């Protein structure tokens, strides 16, 4: 009898335990499933996307109903469902309509004053009319807005819109406010003319005129009247404004929202677009629809590109040349030969200066960097889609001609290294007294075995491969380096923490190209401005400080003489290559651009003489490509 009771009791407990474990099991599966993070996308949304509030009802469209010969399909930009259309908000997760990219703003729906072209370094007017004008001491800038520029509701784009966009940005602290608030004092408007007053230091000099030019190419202008409506609707509450779905948004660009769900995002051409005026493009962009199917991961997007379901693919494709050389597919990239794309940034391994062993030993930092086999990284991780460090010697500059001309190559020649220099690295360590005294094959510092980890997010294949090669280099010079691949959600909370000691060598990319570069990137590499900043997404992730570098960095934005600027950059390069607070592992495009020509053709390519940058036909001056597309036969 008693036995039975126990059995019953046990079975009840067992059933509840079962239920609980099943629930736990389900949760676990969800948590563990997305191991294949998009490897090529480098800057996923920094924070958790807010729950989708603004989904359109499953409207008239379905997959088959977009006419293929009027639709340009994308891949590699949009992950997950769209959150909002609120151009002055945050967490929109709306890559096709609202995306500030490292090398140009995406102007399909919302437009900037100027479009940046990283190839020439020029700014082409979009909403603006003609070039911007500086006054002599770079404290005031004047810009005129095109007469033809109109909002989707038919009203004129005026200076008041620019002013309102900036003011609300500062007030509610959105991206525009956070990025440019410190550099722009105020903006005044007079009809179609605006004057930007640059923020000044105590000595009356402009803080940083470079960022003001960034503002012109990086800020989508929103309509003042719409901002007012939104402001009233939210009762002036900053959080409410930032998170408003913005369904009623007014735009000035050539495309408008058409359809979105968890499967895809579609924009439709706005046939009343002002840009068909002769003062701008003179015509409408060719594709009637812009569509982005939401793929689960990179391989899915790549498969769709290969099948011709995707026309423009912003994804890293390993051995991309195989697609046309081996498989004979009608796929091409900007350049015919390696590196196939325009490399604008350099993924970098940062040394964590919170760890005494790294902070105290520049020799150790340099030795590891010298021992790494970069040719292998470039051949393996990038499948040669990057120039090598013997072709473009390491410095603070990206491999474009414009930036390469900014420092004296001969002056730093002896400091540069092309990698795989095991003997040199060992000699450096021996000289610095970092030796293996207990004979276990690994070197010690202050009597303790040096043991470092090399970290990057799990699933970011190319970076993972690079970290493996860094670890292999450590092995060769007797420094223990083990690899560690935490999930992205963990990684992104640790590496931005200014006091973290968990990651010793970790990966992140500095700025790519914009009017404020390479200055901005140099500041990220060496500037102490970012040291100690909580939740630091801005720069100097290794927490390196150098007073002399700071002084030089501050001088550059205020210097106008080209020779002097070159001298300053050369000195900074010297510091960087001597101190080695971080080391770049490869050069890399800021956006990938592979196109399939089975439906559309006449995409930008290096040899077509049009000089349209390969920015996926959407970003900065790259959008010019949309006006030249043709249907393939």
């Amino acid at each position, binding site marked *: 009898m008693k036995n039975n009771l126990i059995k019953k009791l046990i079975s009840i407990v067992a059933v509840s335990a079962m239920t609980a474990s099943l629930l736990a099991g389900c949760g676990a599966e969800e948590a563990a499933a997305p191991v294949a993070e998009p490897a090529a996308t480098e800057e996923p949304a920094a924070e958790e996307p807010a729950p989708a509030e603004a989904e359109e009802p499953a409207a008239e469209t379905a997959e088959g109903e977009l006419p293929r010969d009027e639709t340009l399909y994308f891949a590699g930009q949009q992950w997950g469902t769209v959150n909002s259309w609120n151009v002055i908000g945050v967490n929109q997760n709306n890559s096709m309509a609202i995306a500030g990219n490292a090398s140009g703003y995406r102007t399909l729906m919302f437009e900037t004053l100027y479009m940046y072209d990283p190839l020439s370094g020029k700014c082409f007017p979009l909403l603006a009319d003609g070039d911007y004008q500086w006054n002599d001491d770079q404290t005031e800038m004047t810009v005129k807005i095109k007469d033809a520029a109109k909002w989707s509701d038919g009203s004129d784009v005026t200076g008041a819109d620019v002013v309102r966009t900036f003011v609300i940005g500062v007030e509610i602290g959105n991206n525009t406010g956070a990025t440019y608030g410190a550099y722009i004092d105020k903006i005044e408007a007079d009809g179609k003319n605006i004057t930007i007053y640059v923020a000044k230091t105590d000595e009356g000099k402009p803080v940083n005129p470079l960022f003001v030019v960034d503002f012109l190419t990086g800020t989508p202008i929103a309509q003042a009247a719409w901002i007012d409506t939104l402001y009233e609707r939210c009762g002036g509450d900053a959080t409410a404004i930032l998170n408003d779905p913005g369904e009623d948004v007014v735009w000035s660009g050539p495309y408008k929202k058409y359809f979105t769900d968890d499967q895809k995002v579609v924009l439709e051409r706005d046939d009343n677009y002002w840009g068909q005026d002769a003062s701008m493009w003179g015509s409408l962009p060719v594709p009637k629809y812009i569509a982005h199917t939401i793929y689960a991961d990179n391989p899915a997007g790549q498969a769709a590109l290969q099948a011709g379901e995707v026309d423009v693919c912003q994804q890293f494709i390993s051995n991309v040349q195989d697609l046309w050389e081996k498989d004979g597919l*009608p796929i091409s990239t900007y350049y015919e030969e390696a590196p196939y794309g325009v490399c604008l940034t350099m993924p970098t391994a940062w040394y964590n200066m919170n760890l005494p062993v790294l902070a105290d030993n520049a020799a150790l930092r340099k030795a590891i960097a010298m021992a790494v086999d970069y040719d292998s990284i470039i*051949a393996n991780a990038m499948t040669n889609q990057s120039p090598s460090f013997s072709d473009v010697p390491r410095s603070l500059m990206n491999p474009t001609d414009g930036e390469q001309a900014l420092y004296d190559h001969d002056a730093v020649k002896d400091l540069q290294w092309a990698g795989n220099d095991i003997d040199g690295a060992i000699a450096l360590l021996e000289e610095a007294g970092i030796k293996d005294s207990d004979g276990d094959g690994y070197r010690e510092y202050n009597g303790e075995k040096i043991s470092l980890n090399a970290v990057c997010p799990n699933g970011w294949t190319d970076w993972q491969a690079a970290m*493996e*090669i860094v670890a292999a280099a450590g092995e060769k010079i007797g420094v223990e380096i083990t690899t*560690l691949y935490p999930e992205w959600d963990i990684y992104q909370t640790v590496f931005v923490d200014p006091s973290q000691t968990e990651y010793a060598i970790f990966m992140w990319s500095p700025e790519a190209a914009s009017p404020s570069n390479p200055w901005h990137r140099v500041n990220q590499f060496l500037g102490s401005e970012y040291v100690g900043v909580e939740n630091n997404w801005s720069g100097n992730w290794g927490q390196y400080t150098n007073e002399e570098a700071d002084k030089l960095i501050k001088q550059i934005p205020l210097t106008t003489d080209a020779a002097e600027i070159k001298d300053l950059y050369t000195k900074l390069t010297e510091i960087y290559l001597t101190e080695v607070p971080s080391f770049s592992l490869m050069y890399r495009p800021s956006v990938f651009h592979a196109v399939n020509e089975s439906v559309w053709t006449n995409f930008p390519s290096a040899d077509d003489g049009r000089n349209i940058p390969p920015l996926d036909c959407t970003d900065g001056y790259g959008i010019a490509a949309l006006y030249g597309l043709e249907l393939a036969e």
Partner: protein
Amino acid sequence: MKNTFRQLMHSSKFVLGAGIFVLILLTMLIYPLINPGNPLEMIGVGTFAKPGTYFSLYDALDTKTETLKLKDAEENRLTSIVSMEDRVSMIEFMEKINVDVSGIEMDDVDAILELWHNNFNENSKPKGITNAKWRNYKTLNNRIKKIGKEERVVYDLDPATDEEHKLKVVGGTDYVNINGVVNTKTLPLGTDNFGRDVLKELVSACGTSILIGLVAGAVATLIGLLFGLLAGYLGGIADDIIMFVTNVFTVIPSFVLLILISYSIGQEQRGATVVAVVIGLTSWTWTARSVRSQVISLRNRDHVNLSKLSGHSLVRIVLSDILPYIASYVVMAFILQVSSGILSEAQLSLLGLGPKTTTTPTLGLMMNWAMLYAAHTNGYWWAYFPVILTITLISFSLNLMNTGMDQVFNPALRD
């Protein structure tokens, strides 16, 4: 024991299974002697070199040449430059730019080439041709330029004066004996995404994976055996409690548990042994259940009761009166556990939750990297297929041994 062994040797299934397994073990032992060195050394710069023998072109230039007049050499060269597909696409191009191609035979390479020479201009891209196609035509055109050249000249550059010296003239009929080339390397299975020798890595990984399997199997079998023996022999409350725990573990899908544990111990702690132990800890339940049922059927046998009456201790009864009767069963269970341990490691590593990388290769990690580099979609079969084959062979041989033993030991199946 000897008798049992003889019986086993009569089972063809067991012999085949054991044969395959021993062969794999032998390869693991012998191959590193033939091809010594670190299996994780990245010898290739670049990804996925094809299987085959590589010889140094640099050294080949210094190797003595023989002249061989082979009849179809010229023909082979031509077809390798202009394949049938190329010819079709050349004709397509001609049609596109409105050149009359009637009367051209596909076999008539010379006619096609002549037409090509007369009409292709690499500096003017005809309208309506896609960029991708145009680039293909240009590379084809560059290849075609090589046709008809009798010899090629290799120059040496003097770095001091920047002058070029003619080093060697290579004719179309010059051959070198591959044995005469100083540096050659045979990569029977090519290289992987890191440029590592796949066969060498595979052999080493095979060892690690079998070791993981053995450790996992041993852990699982030990726990299962202990719980099963205790539950079965003691009965009553002890049985209820042990079976409660076992049931709880049975209903949680063990793979989910495995993922959870691996995830939570973090990558830094995940060495091969830790992963093996974790696998063992999550897969003991069915051993426990079946051992228990066997013990229950044994515990009221006369000889056990006799031992009890004689006052023998629990440990002694279990070890000497019960365990020997289920030993064959336990060995069979162990073999299956080893096999599933190897599979579990492969599955875990495929998800990126296997042992940490850099230090030891395992079968699962090899597949993980092959998958990350899309080897399966790009046709680099040598990076993943041999791994799958090896896993299949190992578990096939173990299962075969198990079935063979079952036939010998299980009275119901004995012929």
